[in-house]
């Protein structure tokens, strides 16, 4: 009787919409191994998850970006000591409509498109069509990552922002739906979310602008695909008990196999 009370635990897990499917798959697999543990997983965006962590309403926050200095300060002010875990890696795929003849872009061209400096597909070797830029909302970790690594090309002093006519869509599904239907559209999303109804572009790095690479687990692992990033989980403090067991399991080879199944890249 006493031991069952001790092992029963309820873990609240919330945050990045990029990670939510992965976190759900992990939670389901883990609950099969340990029926006493109950894990609830919700999305909402990286910022939402970290805010919830700071407000102490979740045990683990999922984030597709690192915690910001001001969020860390807020967490410390709330008496927390957030711990970071890199749980998987992810490629961000740049997607267009299958009718669009463009097959690849340099990362500079991609940056200029989202800055609003390139406005027609013919400027990058496509048809004479206006470019409709799609992005996730600003609360998405993917948005922040794309702003820093693509729009600003990793230059932290650059304060350029997305062209103001960039469409900010509230969900990954919204981006896929619009790209699928609209031959003018360009969008970006985690590789795990890309369906066969849209076309993934090959992207070249600044160092080798002639070598265009398609995103995949291999090209992310060997660092040839440039738009890739780490995915994180944050805990309120140094994890103990059930939360520690869960995070240890997530980094185990068994759990990292699930990462690969969902189109993400394992960390080890």
């Amino acid at each position, binding site marked *: 009787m006493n031991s069952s009370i001790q092992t029963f635990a309820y873990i609240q897990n919330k945050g990045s919409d990029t990670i939510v499917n992965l976190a759900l798959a992990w939670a389901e697999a883990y609950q099969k191994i340990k029926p006493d543990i109950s894990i609830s997983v919700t999305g*909402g*965006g990286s*910022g*939402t998850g970290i*805010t919830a962590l*700071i*407000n102490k309403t979740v045990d683990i926050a999922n984030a597709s970006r690192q915690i910001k200095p*001001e*969020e860390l300060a*807020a967490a410390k002010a709330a008496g927390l000591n957030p711990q970071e875990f890199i749980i998987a890696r992810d490629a961000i795929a740049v997607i267009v409509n299958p009718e669009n003849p463009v097959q690849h872009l340099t990362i500079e061209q991609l940056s200029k498109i989202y800055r609003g400096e390139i406005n027609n597909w013919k400027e990058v070797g496509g048809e004479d*069509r*206006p470019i*409709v830029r799609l992005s996730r*909302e*600003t*609360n998405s970790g993917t948005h*922040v990552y794309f*702003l820093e690594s693509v729009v600003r090309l990793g230059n932290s002093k650059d*304060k350029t*922002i*997305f062209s*103001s*006519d*960039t*469409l*900010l*869509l*509230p969900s990954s599904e*919204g981006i896929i*739906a*619009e790209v699928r*239907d*609209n031959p*003018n*559209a360009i969008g970006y999303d985690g590789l795990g979310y890309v369906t066969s109804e849209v076309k993934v572009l090959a992207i070249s790095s600044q160092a080798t602008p002639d070598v265009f690479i398609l995103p995949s687990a291999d090209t992310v692992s060997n660092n040839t695909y440039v738009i890739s990033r780490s995915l994180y989980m944050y805990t309120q403090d140094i994890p103990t008990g059930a939360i520690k067991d869960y995070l240890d399991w997530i980094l185990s080879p068994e759990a990292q196999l699930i990462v690969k199944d969902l189109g993400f890249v394992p960390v080890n």
Partner: protein
Amino acid sequence: MKRNRISGDKIINFIIKVCGYSSILFVTLILLFLLREGIPALANVTLKNLFGTVWYPIEEYFGILPLILGTLLVTIGAIIIALPFGIGTAIYLSEIAPKWISDLLKPIIEILAGIPSVVLGFIGILVVVPFMRKIFDLPTGLTAVTGSILLGLIAIPTIVSIGEDALNNVPPSYRQAALALGATRWQTIWGVTLPAAKNGILTAVMLGVGRALGETMAVMMVTGNAPVMPVKWNSFFLPVRTMTATIASEMGEVATGSAHYQVLFFIGIILFLISLAVNITASSVSTRQRKRAERILS
């Protein structure tokens, strides 16, 4: 026995009175909360930034003008669409349709009012958005006018039910007099019934405006949410971002008490003021109607 009944009456009266006043209390509390959370934005964000034209909160650009104009554009478009359909339906139901047809149509219109806006938004994404892009040859179908169409659908049931009530309140003797003078049915509707119900119909339209103004989900799904200033001649056919969609999509991420949080509440204050103005207009119009009715009767 008698005393019991009187004290029972008093208790019931008191409970009903509390219910009546509680709505005033709730509105006041909501307003106070909005003011408490939103007014500090004026101190923490410069006025030039706050009333600027760039909205990009993660880099501290808090220009709310594109959002206000976006909301106004989508709402005006919705009313242009909902007005003829709403009033036309109300006239048909009240003046023209045989009783069995209006008995059939009224519940159907009420079902339209009950459809969750997220469902309308979903239909919007799958049907209206690709349709608009092809018909008008637009860069994208996620535009202000797409939002207006969905909001129009949402506002129509409100306009129909209140407009129909207003038409039904016109005394039958007015119509009988017009018909007796040899007016056709259309002349009676256009020259007598509609003018007599004018204020009630204005109220219906104002409440329809209020319904469209506050709608969030459907608009967020189909207007593209790009915070551009809708000042070009073709802005109606370009993406816009509304105030409600901004609050809904960003409130979840903000740190409590940050400048971004305060600005979102400030947007809430502006929405509150706009819908207050709309409601005051609606109720002042309907009070005028009552006074006029009293004058006619006396």
